[in-house]
């Protein structure tokens, strides 16, 4: 037991120190994990043998990652970007793999190995690139979008690759492995449902499993999640999400299919579900930690002796690979008319090999496709190219962007930047109206509510809404708070609304917050928490009803409208003063209740303002369609024309 604790502690310490440092130096978290692994593995030697065992376990992070990738891929969205996805992504994968394979064949590498190397190197690092795009705000540019399509295609292409690679197994490696396996198998029998089945039955089992996955995911998961959600226990929901992913992985392994493929399919099936964001945020931390662990084990597995021994080859291969990838991408950017700085962004951002390369390499070794020595070299090339990526981004910003900025485009206005979604937290009676107004005007909203019954009702009338507690940071994250343009806080519970405003203002200061206040006191709390726009939930409707009352009493409707406006204006003007007083009172618990005094003063101000217009006298303070005083025209008649030229002008209207 102590041993496990110690190991877990070492891994965690390494990650906790290295990852924030790497981020601070602009290297990204993936490199942080790799460096952490290198330090605790080859450099210090704290971990060794067990790293490869842990790596098997950590590969489950990849399964989770594909589940999350699937969740984010609504079939509709996939369809909308099909041209770029298939064209750019497909050509990039095929051309790069073919070019790498050709070069490998030139160096007289066996064709199965050459093909595997091509597949490994064609992938780029989704984790590094998307994270850097987010940090630098490049995701919405043409280059950024094209790069995303390619990454997405690669992520999907990994799945057939994982299925395909075992077919390339080398006979001599298989023999060796079987000897080892037969000894291991005696203690440790791998469970399989399909071991002795004939071909047709095997095909039947696989089809059945996939059908079960799709149909079950679509029809059974909802009642299950609804049942769990109605219990209101968050950890049980997390358990359900984990159960789902692990269950799918188990089922896929049982029938001899890739667990990653199953998880991806399940993700796509659930992408339209109201539980999507909640699922994603439940899985996200596990995925992140396991992937992190995976990268650490990769780093720990780096063979330094090998690196020094083969330094020249590895460096040459890395530089050659990156150059090749850039050339292929530049060619594609010509074909797909990606222009100017976008072209360079597209080409440079995808020049590295990626984390799926690690997965493919270790998977290939397990399946006896690659010899271990070559795998070592490939891993080092992949890692080195990832290490160099932040440098490429810096080069793009410092060298390439200024050149295109100096020569401004002849085009007129730029295309309006796509607006981020509006997140609406809480869609009870209040949030619903906000959402209806926004969606009717074509605004993209993400609607969250923690009451599943509410979400059910909205879904039944075709309002896209998601189950989940918006006060949870991870759920906000998966709902897209980073790119959101606005957050509407319209939940029932005043305390959690204030908490949410405080958290979001602090963590994402760029997001504008519009909040519903329960009453005056709550409005002040929201204001102190940093909300940008606040509406008291009852003020305006109460004013309307008050206005109706005045009309019933015989006041002229237009006059009532003016009085209502005056009331609103004074209320707004004095709210600053009252807010200050409230801040003083509530923090210092002062004895003289300054706030109450000011409130009474406000009531007086409103009363005077309302009655002011009723006086018959003409005074300077009286405003709005005030007639001039009686007898004023006698003075005007005595006036000379002020501009003789204008007065003499020959105008006869």
């Amino acid at each position, binding site marked *: 037991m102590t041993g496990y604790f110690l190991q877990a502690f070492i891994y965690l310490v390494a990650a906790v120190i290295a990852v924030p440092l790497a981020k601070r130096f602009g290297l990204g978290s993936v490199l942080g994990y790799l460096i952490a692994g290198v330090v605790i593995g080859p450099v210090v030697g704290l971990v060794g043998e067990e790293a490869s065992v842990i790596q098997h376990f950590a590969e489950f992070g990849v399964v989770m990652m594909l589940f999350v990738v699937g969740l984010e891929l609504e079939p509709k969205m996939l369809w909308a970007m099909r041209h770029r996805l298939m064209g750019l992504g497909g050509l990039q994968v095929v051309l790069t793999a073919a070019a790498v394979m050709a070069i490998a064949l030139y160096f007289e590498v066996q064709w199965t190995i050459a093909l595997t190397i091509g597949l490994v190197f064609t992938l780029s690092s989704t984790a590094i690139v998307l994270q850097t795009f987010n940090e630098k705000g490049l995701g919405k540019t043409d280059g950024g979008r094209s790069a995303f399509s390619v990454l997405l295609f690669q992520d999907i292409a990994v799945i057939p690759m994982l299925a395909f690679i075992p077919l390339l197994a080398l006979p001599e490696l298989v023999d060796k492995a079987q000897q080892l396996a037969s000894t291991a198998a005696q203690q440790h029998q791998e469970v399989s449902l399909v071991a002795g089945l004939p071909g047709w039955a095997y095909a039947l089992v696989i089809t059945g499993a996939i059908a079960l996955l799709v149909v079950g995911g679509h029809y059974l998961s909802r009642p299950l999640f609804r049942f769990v959600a109605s219990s209101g226990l968050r950890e049980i929901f997390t358990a359900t999400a984990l159960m789902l992913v692990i269950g799918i992985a188990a089922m896929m392994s049982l029938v001899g299919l890739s667990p990653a493929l199953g998880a991806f399919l399940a993700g796509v099936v659930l992408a339209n579900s109201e539980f999507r964001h909640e699922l994603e945020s439940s899985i996200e931390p596990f995925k992140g930690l396991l992937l992190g662990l995976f990268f650490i084990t990769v780093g720990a597995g780096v063979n330094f002796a090998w690196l020094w021994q083969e330094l020249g080859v590895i460096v040459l291969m890395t530089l050659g690979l990156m150059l090749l990838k850039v050339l292929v991408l530049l060619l594609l950017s010509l074909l797909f008319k990606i222009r100017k700085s976008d072209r360079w962004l597209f080409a440079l951002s995808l020049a590295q090999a990626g984390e799926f390369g690690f997965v493919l390499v270790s998977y290939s070794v397990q399946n006896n496709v690659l010899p271990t020595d070559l795998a070592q070299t490939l891993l080092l090339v992949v890692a080195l190219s990832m290490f160099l990526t932040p440098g490429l981004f810096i080069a793009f910003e410092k060298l390439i962007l200024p050149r295109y900025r100096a020569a401004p485009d002849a085009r007129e206005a730029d295309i309006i930047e796509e607006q981020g979604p509006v997140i609406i937290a809480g869609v009870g009676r209040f949030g619903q109206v906000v959402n209806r107004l926004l969606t009717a005007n074509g605004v993209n909203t993400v609607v969250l509510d923690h009451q599943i019954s509410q979400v059910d009702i909205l879904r039944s009338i075709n309002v896209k809404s998601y189950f989940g507690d918006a006060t949870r940071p991870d759920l906000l994250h998966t709902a897209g708070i980073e790119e959101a343009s606005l957050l509407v806080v319209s939940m029932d519970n005043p305390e959690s609304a204030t908490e949410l405003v405080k958290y979001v203002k602090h963590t994402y200061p760029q997001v504008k917050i519009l909040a519903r206040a329960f009453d005056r006191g709550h409005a002040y709390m929201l204001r102190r928490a940093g909300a940008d726009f606040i509406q008291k939930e009852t003020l305006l409707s109460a004013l309307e009803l008050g206005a109706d009352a005045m009309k019933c009493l015989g006041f002229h409707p237009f006059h009532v409208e003016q009085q209502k406006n005056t009331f609103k204006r004074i209320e707004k003007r004095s709210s600053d003063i009252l807010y200050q007083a409230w801040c003083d009172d509530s923090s210092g618990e002062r004895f003289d209740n300054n706030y109450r005094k000011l409130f009474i003063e406000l009531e007086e101000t409103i009363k005077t303002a309302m009655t002011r217009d009723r006086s018959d006298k*003409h005074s300077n303070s009286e405003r709005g369609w005030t007639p001039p005083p009686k007898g*004023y025209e006698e003075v005007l008649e005595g006036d000379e024309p002020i501009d003789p030229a204008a007065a003499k002008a*020959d105008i006869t209207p």
Partner: protein
Amino acid sequence: MSTTHKRVLLLLAHPSQHRSEVNIPLFNAAKAIDGVTAVDLYGEYPTFDIDIECEQQRLIEHDIVIFQFPLYWYSTPAILKEWQDLVLEYGFAYGTDGTVLKGKTFFCAVSAGGKEDAYQAQGYNHFTVRQLLAPLEQTASLTGMHYLAPLVLFGARTAIEDDFMARHIGQWQRLLKALVEDRVNVHLTAKLDCLNHHLDTIIERER
């Protein structure tokens, strides 16, 4: 060459800006000129709740006042009338102590659907734009402001198709610059129907 620069207050009244083809480009072109304060009245007062105090302060702070609007039923859109009714108070704009506007300059920059020959005694609109805007001219006179003939974009519905937006924007910016630099001869505009074809005459000392 005079070094004292005039401050221009441009009040735009356009209630459906998402459909605007000429007024918004003109408004944006004006914003780009130093010395012009551009105010979107419908934008600031969507419920017509005009802040009299603020609007009067704006008038005090500027030397030249321009109404920019599409001609609606031979007059201004509603908010400009509301603005006059509320802001040009007795004792501020006219009456015994109402001398705040005295000596300032005023004119209208208008877009009109009809062609120039429609706004003639012989045309189907029977009056020139200047004649139709006589109430504003008289308001200027009563408040002691110099009145300039209006600058009119005729045939505004097809301005883009007929390709004369660029020229009109050019004229508009040229006039605004001349106003800021105090190079417009107000008296020469007294007899004009509109400023359109007379910029060469009324603008002095052009570089």
